[in-house]
């Protein structure tokens, strides 16, 4: 029974679809106050998260266009959790926003797109998921409608992504020309390392790289992150990036396995470039969102190092790192979004003496930054360590050495913010902020995640055990 299968295998997608439908109905119906709407939506998202963990299933749908298994379910759950946290964090910003429901509809649509993308077993499906997760994001980026920067960010995002998807499609078309099929499982057997295939692979790789901001395909990142509303920035930086990373890992390890030698060297080159350039740019940013953009570019460089390892360890460490990265980055963005929404300040220099007025937020931001930097006992340490172990598995110690030394540079800029918060004097520090309930919950979730995910080894072991699939 295909319908039966759909209900079982696509339950996460259907759940999302349901929420979108409810929101549409509310939109059409009578007016709700923003607060109650937010409460409702967050409750729905919480249900969504919890339901994701129930009844895991494994199987294929529509030929092999859609597939799911426990790893993919886990990946979707991770994305769900991230979305919930972002939703909780943007409470202060959305509370007074006119187009609250639209925002959620767009966001959940992109999430749906990502789900399809993660589950895709076919290039067509993948492409559809990718576009579904991209185009609404452009609209979301413009959600501070009256701000010019927001529009500019959206414009840059839509133009760049259209361009990149054009090139990606060109690559896919060439691949189709040489392989004659769009199905992941079948393409593999047709890959023979011809120049045309390598060329098409480079184009596809560029498409992925664009989404996860790998140098030199990253230029849009900083501008878009800076201009967009904080909620969108954090969504872009963790959820959208995370989803593409999940696909990227599985595509590289399964579909493009015959080209392993090529992509291994490419990743080597790209990861070094990404880490170095990301770090160098991050060094001298003053806008904290822009800073986080570049730091996330550098983080992606580390992820590429991990991917260049062998399949199981590489997959496990990448998924693990993304999980940690979601909590760490959202911890930082949570504070940033609060400060931005309430105090309207987004510069690092505004954060001077932040600790005097807001000790709790300062600690959250500090711990989140430490986790991003990879300082124990936060989870970021474990994440980075395992990524680099995975990367070293092939014996490429030069890469590891470069990565390790770049961690030092990254320490500098993370510590620079910590320094501002704790040590620099400031005549007019950000005033004492009252934190609403929901962002507070979000921050606590992030803190718990940062502490627990690293020290509690079962999480890594669980991911590792699932990663055997490839």
């Amino acid at each position, binding site marked *: 029974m295909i319908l039966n299968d759909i209900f079982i295998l696509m339950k996460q997608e259907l759940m999302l679809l349901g929420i979108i439908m409810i929101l549409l109905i509310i939109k059409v119906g009578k007016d709700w106050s923003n607060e109650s709407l937010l409460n409702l939506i967050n409750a729905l998202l919480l249900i969504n998260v919890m339901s994701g963990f129930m009844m895991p299933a494994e199987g294929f749908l529509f030929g092999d266009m859609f597939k799911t298994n426990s790893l993919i379910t886990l990946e979707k759950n991770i994305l769900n959790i991230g979305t919930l946290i972002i939703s909780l964090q943007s409470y202060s910003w959305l509370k007074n926003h006119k187009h609250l429901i639209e925002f959620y509809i767009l966001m959940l649509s992109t999430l749906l797109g990502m789900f399809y993308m993660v589950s895709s077993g076919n290039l067509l499906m993948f492409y559809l998921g990718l576009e579904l997760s991209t185009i609404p994001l452009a609209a979301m980026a413009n959600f501070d409608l009256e701000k010019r920067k927001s529009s500019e960010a959206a*414009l*840059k995002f839509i*133009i*760049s992504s259209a*361009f*990149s998807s054009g*090139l990606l499609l060109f690559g896919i078309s060439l691949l189709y020309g040489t392989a004659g099929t769009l199905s992941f499982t079948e393409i593999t057997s047709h890959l023979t390392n011809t*120049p045309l295939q*390598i*060329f098409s692979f*480079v*184009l596809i*790789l*560029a498409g992925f*790289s*664009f989404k996860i901001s790998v140098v*030199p*395909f990253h*230029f*849009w990142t*900083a*501008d878009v992150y800076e201009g967009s509303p904080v909620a969108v920035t954090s969504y872009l930086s963790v959820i959208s990036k995370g989803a593409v990373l999940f696909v990227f890992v599985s595509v590289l390890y399964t579909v493009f396995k015959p080209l392993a030698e*090529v992509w291994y*060297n*490419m990743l080597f*080159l790209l990861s070094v470039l990404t880490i170095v*350039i990301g770090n*160098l*740019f991050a*060094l*001298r940013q003053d806008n904290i969102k822009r800073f986080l953009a570049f730091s996330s570019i550098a983080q992606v460089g580390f992820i590429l190092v991990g991917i260049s390892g062998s399949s199981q360890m590489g997959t496990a460490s990448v998924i693990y790192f993304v999980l940690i990265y979601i909590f760490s980055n959202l911890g930082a963005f949570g504070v940033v979004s609060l400060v931005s929404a309430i105090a309207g300040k987004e510069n690092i220099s505004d954060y001077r003496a932040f600790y005097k007025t807001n000790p709790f937020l300062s600690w959250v931001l500090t711990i989140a930054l430490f986790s991003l930097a990879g300082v124990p006992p936060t989870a970021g340490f474990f994440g980075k360590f395992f990524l680099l172990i995975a990367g070293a598995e092939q014996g490429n110690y030069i890469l590891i050495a470069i990565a390790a030394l770049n961690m030092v*540079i990254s320490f*500098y800029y993370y510590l620079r913010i910590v320094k501002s918060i704790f040590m620099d004097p400031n005549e007019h520090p950000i005033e004492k902020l009252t934190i609403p309930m929901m962002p507070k919950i979000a921050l606590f979730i992030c803190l718990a995640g940062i502490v627990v995910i690293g020290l509690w080894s079962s999480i890594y072991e669980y991911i590792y055990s699932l990663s055997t699939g490839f």
Partner: protein
Amino acid sequence: MNIYSYIALIPLLPFAAFVLLGLFGRKYFNTVSGILGTFTLGISTLLSLATAYQYFFVDGKVDGVFTQIIPLKYTWLQFSPNLSIDMGIILDPLSVMMLVVVTFVSLMVHIFSLGYMKGEERFATYYSFLSLFTFSMLGLVLSSNIFQIYMFWELVGVSSFLLIGFYFEKPSAVAAAKKAFIVTRFADLGFLIGILILSFHAQTLDFQTLIARLTDPQSSQMLSITTASFMGISMLTWGLVLVFAGGAGKSAMFPLHIWLPDAMEGPTPVSALIHAATMVVAGVYLVGRLFPVFVFDGAALIIVTYVGAFSALLAAVIACTQTDIKRVLAYSTMSQIGYMMFAMGVSGKGGEEGLGYMASLFHLFTHAFFKSLLFLGAGAVIHMVHSNDMKDMGGLRKLMPITHITFLIACLAIAGIPPFAGFFSKEEILLAAFHSNKLVFFVALFTSGLTAFYMFRLYFSIFWSKETQQHSEHHDEGPLSMKIPLIILGACALLAGFAPIASLVTSDGKEIETHIDVLFSLTPVLLAITGILLALSLYKKESDKATKVANTFGGFYRTAYKKFYIDELYLFVTQKIIFNLVGKPSAWIDKNIIDGMMNKLAEGTGVVSTQIKGLQSGKVQSYALYFFFGIMGLSALFIYLLK
């Protein structure tokens, strides 16, 4: 348990006094702390006298030879199965004699200080430091392990630092203490390396074993140390010379003597203790301790001889020109220790050959008494006059009869006039030198004349010279506690010459025959008398004769007065060369080059970061262009180049 176990108490009692007085003395019993210190030391003295009796006259001798007894030995630090620092006690004629000398002189100083330091705010501290010094010195002479001796050696250095710098508010005292410590520390470096060399080859740190191994030509250790060489000189020579360097530092031998005159900044009784009888002779003791090994290495002994002889002469010349009475005494000490050193140097081992060894230690013994007497006498004078300078003194003989008499005795003793103590010991030294090295003999002879001259210059300047005295209003000679030690030491200076050292303390433990050859001793005695007469004519009455004589010597006098500019030379080397040419550049390099490198590295990263910011131009089309170049670059690289 050995019957000698109580010996451990001899050093430990002063140590207990140090701890007690140092921690609680000042707060709780400042005034009685002197009595307490003296009392504990008195017990130690009695014990050491008992030890001496027990050892020399009861059971030290086995078959006519004094043997070494190790009554106590605890492993303190085990480096390896072979090498360990042991805390032990060694008893042999040398150490027992030193034990007596140290405790006795120290006791005298303790008693003297009761009066001298009375009213001092840090009275208890003073006594605790004295006790610490005595403890270290006793530990030094009793050491059975070469590393143990090094440890106490350092402790002696530190406690002398504390004592010299006792008047810590006087910058000159602090400077002198620093100088004394650093110079001897520098010398100790040689000692340390010497220990490393000797112990590495002998594979032991224990004196007995070390000496046994390094005096047996057949032993593998002896073979290894004599065959190994560095810069063409055998390791044995290196080791011994370096050890001697350490001894020379403590004993103020040229060129490491510069600290001694300055060290007179300390309280005068301290000088009597440290710079007359105990610490400064540690070098002689050290050479004596390792004498059996030294005998096997002619080169080392020659160095000992010439360093000793030269120091004796140099110091005597300088002493003739100084006007600070304590400095005169300091140089005289240096000169006398020079005597002891070269006596060691000219000695051989066993029988008549070993005369020098015996003579040296004999002189050490007698010198301890008369030199500490001289210092204490000078202390009494200073106590009265409140000045160190000869010019402020004169005509004191009536005011301080006891001091005067005892001082005279000491002067006669050091000048070598029979039957005072110095005569006998000096006689033996000259005899030993005469037999083995004529050059050294003549130097020594000349020096002994000079000695008589400068000592009596001192004597006449203090006690005669001017007749009338103003500064005598209500002072008397000082309390009883200051007089008693003078009297006792005076008696010793008179009688110590008759002590049977020759039959007790010899290089091989056997007695040697000594006799006074009247013909031979005529020359030095006549020379001494000449010196005394010269001093008499120049300094008995206040006149400008002395100045005239000084002027006739002109440049030489000035040079000698300036101590041959050795201090200035050292100052130049340390201040100008070490500080300016090594210290400052190191600090500069660290700040600017090495640290600068790190900072530049960071700055460079920042500069690169600024340079490349133009890439992120904000124009979406150029972003796309980079995107496109990226694709083209990757394709070209991987299709054409890396294929």
